[in-house]
């Protein structure tokens, strides 16, 4: 550990080099696809629906089954026979299976799984499976899906609305009646995902002798999904052993979405009678892993003339895609306790609807619910300023939760633990030199340039209450189901016979550096160096301590898990101090651990090696208090503040609430419509900072995701539900060229509710940055409505006249190829004229000859003559890496 070895103890708060890095930098990481699977493991490949909505008729698997190397083929019928649907978070007649059963509801939905001796052969076999699809109309837009005439995704539900709940806190109606004005925004938040560079991976085994599954997957939790998977597999919880690999290539929430694939591959292993491994490819990941929800929000405020907001009226329509997969509709409720953001607003009404559409099911994604909520709330604050002729920053300031009001109970039940919002803003304004940025705007506008400034003030929740999702249920339904709340974090600290320290955490790290911080925490308690402490981050549900709250989500590591590590180490330290006190002949309180020694506070020479003390229980149990030991301590920690939702639907949805204030200056190119971020300032208060380097990394990383969401990234669907962004050439992830470096500012108001005073910091910019940039774009253009992502074409429409087609062409010929809209069929259309200098009958003779026809149709394969004038041709068409198979009827 160079660069820090000379400093005194106190590892926390310092940017020590990470213990994870040496292996990762030398190619010695152990990711799921690096682990040697059991001998005889087979490879799986998944056949997926090319249609957004279709009844599935016959699935012809014989040809695939005959391919040498193919061991088994799993279809919906097998899955229905061997398992149960995945349990949903709400009570509704919805069945969510990991594979299409009789009906495909989104492009990419699994239809069959081939298990073969290697992946190449498994993919060969996919091409030999013929599925008969009967197309159904697809519905992609959530508003259209709510119409009574819309095609139904789940017939038993009788509508596409899975949940419709209204809430009222305070007396919003009276406030709207009394306020000077009502100001509203109507916004849409798009679909996107943080797309970790490592895709999903599962290795599954089934032991028929025990009726037990053993699965290794780069799943990130929450472990509340373990019972969901065990029930789906129809085994007791103790017969689903779930393990995670030591390393995982990023997640950002996305690797929660492994749940249906863990079930699917486990079933494939059972059917094949052999271990099965599946590594998702990128096209699969983009089209069918998981997506953040898109949301349509109407948000109105009752506003006084000075910009003071008296009440909010939320109407949120959440599009969860084709299935309501647990833990959804959690994204709609995660922010419930902080729907008033950073503001002191006492009256709130909310209507939340959950809608199903023919798109990939939604799930966890960095910011989870926050980007959607803050896009509406902070666009509203800017709109209020615009309509009332006020400075947007003054409107923010006027409504903040006052300094000194913490802990502050929000109208919807959240408990904002600590903060100084006004102080943070003033520091950011000064240190980020807002005045200079304003001068830059004046100057740019003077030159006729499109320059705007945006602001966003955001409360960043972390450490989710496991009960918040039950807010979707009525109080009566909750009473029947029993209360759900809390969030147990676990950590184990142990000594071996040489007195060395090991730590095990159930936070399933995905690259954040949990092992390093846990080592810092323990090193501080025992007077050791972080490198002396071995930390295991992989999880084994059969052996390790865990709870349903375990996993890597809701930015819970720093506040909850590092705190649990601290408590476990402290318990052992207290025991060791009593043992050392006897040997050093001092009071236990006068024993200090420093420099790898236990020593008397006032006489450093009166000391013993820490390792000797730590090993004592192994060799001489008598040195400990009678019947006690200092071998191993496991702490389960949950904060009392995370109570179940009240009968009035008030919920403290998260334990900690950090604060972020962002402002930025952007310029929109008058010719191209491209956005250039001129300056971005982001002020964070995430409580006590445990590792500044990692906090900075979380901020720059989250900022990059957010910038992508603001400017480039969108899971795009055609009106017929076909998926338009299936490669990294279509789904545009920003590179080093697109991401500017934000100015990061910090202040620390420790959380009173966590053992170390830390709060989460990983997700905040995903909540603040998209809307901050959107506010700047609205400011630059002087418009009310801006839509994410801020694509050049969308922005240019505000200042370029509408383009007309050149004379002589029509819209029909200009758009030569396009999917037919609305009928659910994926049909390629083309149109064109070729003149051939031959008499017509020659041309007809040529066209009606099967061999000639096959030769002139690009990508033609097998050709079948149906009649004198009808042919059926198998066609393979490809553009770049994307390839599609289809049939053409030629007449």
């Amino acid at each position, binding site marked *: 550990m160079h660069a820090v070895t000379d400093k005194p103890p106190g590892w926390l708060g310092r940017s020590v080099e990470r213990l994870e890095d040496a292996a990762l*930098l030398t190619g010695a990481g152990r990711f799921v696809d690096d682990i040697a699977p059991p001998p005889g493991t087979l490879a799986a490949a998944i056949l997926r629906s090319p249609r957004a909505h279709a009844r599935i008729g016959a699935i012809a698997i014989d040809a695939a089954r005959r391919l040498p190397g193919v061991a088994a083929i799993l279809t919906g019928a097998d899955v229905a026979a061997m398992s149960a649907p995945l349990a949903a978070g709400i009570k509704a007649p919805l069945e969510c299976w990991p594979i299409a059963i009789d009906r495909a509801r989104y492009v990419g939905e699994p239809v069959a799984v081939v298990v073969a001796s290697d992946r190449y052969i498994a993919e060969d076999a996919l091409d030999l499976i013929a599925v008969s699809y009967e197309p159904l109309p697809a519905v992609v837009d959530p508003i259209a899906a709510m119409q009574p005439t819309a095609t139904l995704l789940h017939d038993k539900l009788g509508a596409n609305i899975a949940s419709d709940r209204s809430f009222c806190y305070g007396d919003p109606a009276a406030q709207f009646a009394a306020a000077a004005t009502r100001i509203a925004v109507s916004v849409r938040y798009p679909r996107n995902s943080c797309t970790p560079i490592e895709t999903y991976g599962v290795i599954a085994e089934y032991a028929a002798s025990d009726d037990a599954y053993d699965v290794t997957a780069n799943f990130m939790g929450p472990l509340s999904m373990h019972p969901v998977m065990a029930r789906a597999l129809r085994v007791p919880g103790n017969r689903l052993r779930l393990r995670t690999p030591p390393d995982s290539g990023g997640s950002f929430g996305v690797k929660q979405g492994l749940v249906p694939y863990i079930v699917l591959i486990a079933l494939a292993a059972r059917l094949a009678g052999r271990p099965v491994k599946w590594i998702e490819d990128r096209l699969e990941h983009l089209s069918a892993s998981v997506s953040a929800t898109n949301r349509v929000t109407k948000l109105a405020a009752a506003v006084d003339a000075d910009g003071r907001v008296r009440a909010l009226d939320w109407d949120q329509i959440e599009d969860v895609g084709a299935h309501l997969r647990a833990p959804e509709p959690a994204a709609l409720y995660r922010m419930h306790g902080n729907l008033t953001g950073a503001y002191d607003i006492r009256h709130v009404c909310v209507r939340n609807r959950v809608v199903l559409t023919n798109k990939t099911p939604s799930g966890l994604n960095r910011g989870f619910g926050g980007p959607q909520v803050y896009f509406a709330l902070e666009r509203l604050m800017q709109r209020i300023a615009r309509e009332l002729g006020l400075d947007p920053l003054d409107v923010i300031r006027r409504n903040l939760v006052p300094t000194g009001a913490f802990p502050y109970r929000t109208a919807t039940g959240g408990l904002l633990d600590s903060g100084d919002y006004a102080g943070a803003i003033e520091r950011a304004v000064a240190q980020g030199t807002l005045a200079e940025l304003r001068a830059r705007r004046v100057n740019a506008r003077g030159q006729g340039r499109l320059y705007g400034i945006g602001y966003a003030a955001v409360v960043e929740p972390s450490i989710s209450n496991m009960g918040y999702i039950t807010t979707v249920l009525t109080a009566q339904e909750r009473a029947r189901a029993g209360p759900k709340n809390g969030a147990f974090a676990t950590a184990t600290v142990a000594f071996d016979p040489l007195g060395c320290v090991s730590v095990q955490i159930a936070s399933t790290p995905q690259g954040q550096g949990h092992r390093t911080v846990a080592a810092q925490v323990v090193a501080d308690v025992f007077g050791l160096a972080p490198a002396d402490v071995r930390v295991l981050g992989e999880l084994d549900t059969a052996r390790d301590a865990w709870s349903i709250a375990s996993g890597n989500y809701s930015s819970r590591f720093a506040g909850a898990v590092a705190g649990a590590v601290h408590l476990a180490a402290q318990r052992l330290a207290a025991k060791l101090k009593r043992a050392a006190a006897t040997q050093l002949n001092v009071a236990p309180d006068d024993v200090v651990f420093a420099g790898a020694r236990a020593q008397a506070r006032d006489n450093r020479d009166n000391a013993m090696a820490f390792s000797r003390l730590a090993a004592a229980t192994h060799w001489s149990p008598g040195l400990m208090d009678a019947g006690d030991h200092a071998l191993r301590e496991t702490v389960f920690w949950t904060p009392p503040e995370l109570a179940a939702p009240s009968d009035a639907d008030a919920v403290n949805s998260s334990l900690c609430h950090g604060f972020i204030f962002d402002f930025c200056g952007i310029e929109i190119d008058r010719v191209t419509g491209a956005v250039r971020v001129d300056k971005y300032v982001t002020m964070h208060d995430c409580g006590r900072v445990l590792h500044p380097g990692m906090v900075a990394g979380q901020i720059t990383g989250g900022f990059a995701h957010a910038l992508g969401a603001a400017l480039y990234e969108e899971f795009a669907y055609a009106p017929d539900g076909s998926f338009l962004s299936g490669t990294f050439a279509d789904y545009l992830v920003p590179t080093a060229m697109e991401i500017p470096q934000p100015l990061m500012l910090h202040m620390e108001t420790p959380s009173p509710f966590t053992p170390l005073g830390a709060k989460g910091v990983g997700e905040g910019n995903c909540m603040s940055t998209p809307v901050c940039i959107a506010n700047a774009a609205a400011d630059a253009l002087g418009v009310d409505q801006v839509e994410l992502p801020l694509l050049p074409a969308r922005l240019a429409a505000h200042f370029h006249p509408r383009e007309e087609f050149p004379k002589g062409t029509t819209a029909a010929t200009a758009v030569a190829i396009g999917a037919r809209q609305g009928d659910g069929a994926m049909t390629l259309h083309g149109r064109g004229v070729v003149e051939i200098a031959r008499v017509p009958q020659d041309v007809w003779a040529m066209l009606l000859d099967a061999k000639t026809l096959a030769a002139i149709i690009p990508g033609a394969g097998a050709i079948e003559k149906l009649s004198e004038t009808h042919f059926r041709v198998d066609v393979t068409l490809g553009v770049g890496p994307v390839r599609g198979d289809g049939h053409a009827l030629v007449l």
Partner: protein
Amino acid sequence: MPRLSADRQHSVRFELNGREVEAQAEPRMLLSDFLRHVLAMTGTHVGCEHGVCGACTVEIDGMAARACLTLAVQVEGARVRTVEALAPGPGRLSILQEAFRRHHGLQCGFCTPGILMSLDIFLRAHPAPSEIDIREYLSGHLCRCTGYAPIVAAALDAAEKLREADIIG
């Protein structure tokens, strides 16, 4: 150029990280799969299999190349270097690797091997790059964890340290 048959395995001989290796591959096998699953060199990672993310970048005859867009049989007789070759010895890190650790230039570490390979090659040819040079060069790689800023800082720092080492050496 040997004639290859699509339906059988062919012997591929090449130099991998300074050692001669030989193994069997079907003509359609990707170099990335060959390195990882046949030769057990799992440091080279696969992120997209269509040449955009850059995680699988390796060095072939001195040039950076996507292992996912290269067939195993194409490296017959070539010199290939992967991330496993970068450290000067067991338990040690190269100047570039150390700079990444010092600047927190990685989080999950999945894209890192490809980025290290690209930068290792780039810094040999461009010992004094500007920040924009590095950003432009890195635009062939996707990283979802870091936001790139610490990677750029690590690369600039490594370039400086490599120049110093060169002067001293």
